[in-house]
C-alpha cells in the first residue's frame, strides 16, 4: 500500500488524481468520520461534515507542503469544520444531540444491568457536556492514542494545553458521574 506522502505527490503531479485521492480517502475516511461523530453524535450531521472536510482536502491538497503529517492536517480540518458546523447549529438552534442521546439511552437500557447502564448514560451525558476542545482532546488521546504533540496541532494549542485539557476532561466527567 502506498504511503500518504506518495499518494499526495502523485496527486500534486496530476498523475491519476482521482485514484490517488480515493486511495487517501479510503485509508482515512473511518477515522475522520468517527472523530466527527464523537462530536456531533448524529449520523446525518457527521456525513455532511465529512463530505465538507473531504471536499476541502480535494481543493487544498495541491497546496499541501508536507511540513506536518497528512493526518494531522486532515484531523485539524475535520476539527475546524465540526466546530463551524456546531456553531452554525447553535445559531439556528437545531442541535440533534439530545435526540440522539435519548436513542442511545434507550438502546443501552435494554442490554445491560441497571447499574452499568446508569454509568454509561452518565458517562455519555458527561462527555457530551464537555467543552469541544476538552472532548476532542480526550477522544484523541484515550481512544485514538495520539501523542500530545499531534493533538496540540490538531486542536491548535500547546502540548501543555493539550495535557491540561485531558486532565480537566477526565476530572469533569468523574465529578459528573459521582453526582449521579
Amino acid at each position, binding site marked *: 500500500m502506498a504511503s500518504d506522502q506518495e499518494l499526495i505527490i502523485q496527486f500534486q503531479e496530476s498523475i491519476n488524481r482521482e485514484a490517488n485521492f480515493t486511495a487517501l*480517502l479510503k485509508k482515512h475516511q473511518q477515522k475522520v468520520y468517527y472523530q466527527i*461523530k464523537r462530536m456531533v453524535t448524529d449520523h446525518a450531521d457527521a456525513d455532511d461534515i*465529512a463530505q465538507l472536510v473531504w471536499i476541502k482536502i480535494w481543493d487544498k491538497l495541491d497546496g499541501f507542503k508536507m511540513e506536518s503529517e497528512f493526518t494531522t492536517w486532515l484531523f485539524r480540518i475535520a476539527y475546524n469544520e465540526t466546530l463551524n458546523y456546531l456553531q452554525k447549529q447553535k445559531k439556528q438552534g437545531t442541535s440533534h444531540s439530545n435526540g440522539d442521546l435519548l436513542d442511545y439511552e434507550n438502546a443501552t437500557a435494554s442490554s445491560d444491568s441497571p447499574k452499568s447502564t446508569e454509568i*454509561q448514560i452518565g*458517562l455519555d451525558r458527561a462527555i457530551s457536556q464537555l467543552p469541544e476542545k476538552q472532548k476532542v482532546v*480526550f477522544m484523541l488521546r484515550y481512544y485514538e492514542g495520539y501523542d500530545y504533540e499531534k493533538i496540540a496541532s490538531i486542536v491548535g494549542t500547546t502540548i501543555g494545553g493539550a*495535557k491540561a485539557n485531558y486532565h480537566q476532561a477526565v476530572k469533569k466527567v*468523574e465529578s459528573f458521574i459521582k453526582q449521579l
Partner: protein
Amino acid sequence: MEKDTELNHQDNIGNSLVQDRAWADSLLNKQSLSQFNLSKTNAPFNYFESFPDQLMSRIEAEKRQKMKKKNAKIFFLPSFMQPLNRLAIAAACIIVVGGSFIFLNNSVSKKTQAPIVANDISLQELSSEEIESYVDANEWIAEIDVQAQMQKENLRLSSLDEKQIEEIKKIITQ
C-alpha cells in the same frame, strides 16, 4: 490528601499513553468507556463503501458548476444603467422637471394674478379722497404727458395759424 493525589495525577499526565488510559479507567470505569466508544463508532450499513463514490460525484458536480460559472458570459451594464447611477439620474430628472414646473407655474400665476387684482378694484369702491390723493401723487406724470404732447404738436405749430393753435390749447386743457 485528595489534592495531593490530584496533583500527582496531573504531573503524571503525558508520561505515557498507557498511564493516561489507566488513570481515566480508574476514575471513569473502563467498561463504560469502551461501551461509549462503541456507540460512537458505528455507521449505517455500507456507508464507508458508498462514501467515496458519493463524494467524487459531488466533487464532479461542483467542478462542473465552477466551470459553468467560469464560461458564462458576463454582461456588464453600461455605467449609467448601474443601480446607483440610475437612481442619481432619476433624482436629477425629478429635480429638473419639478423645478421647471414650479418656476413656470409661478411666473404664469404672477402674470395672471396682477390684472385680476387691478380689475377687481372698481372706481366705485374707491373714495373720492383716495382718488384725489392718487391724482395728486401722479399729477406730475400727467404734466409730463401734456408737455410731451405739446412738444410733439409744437413741431407742427409753426405751420398753423393762431385760430388753430387756440383750438388745440382748448382740447388739451379739457
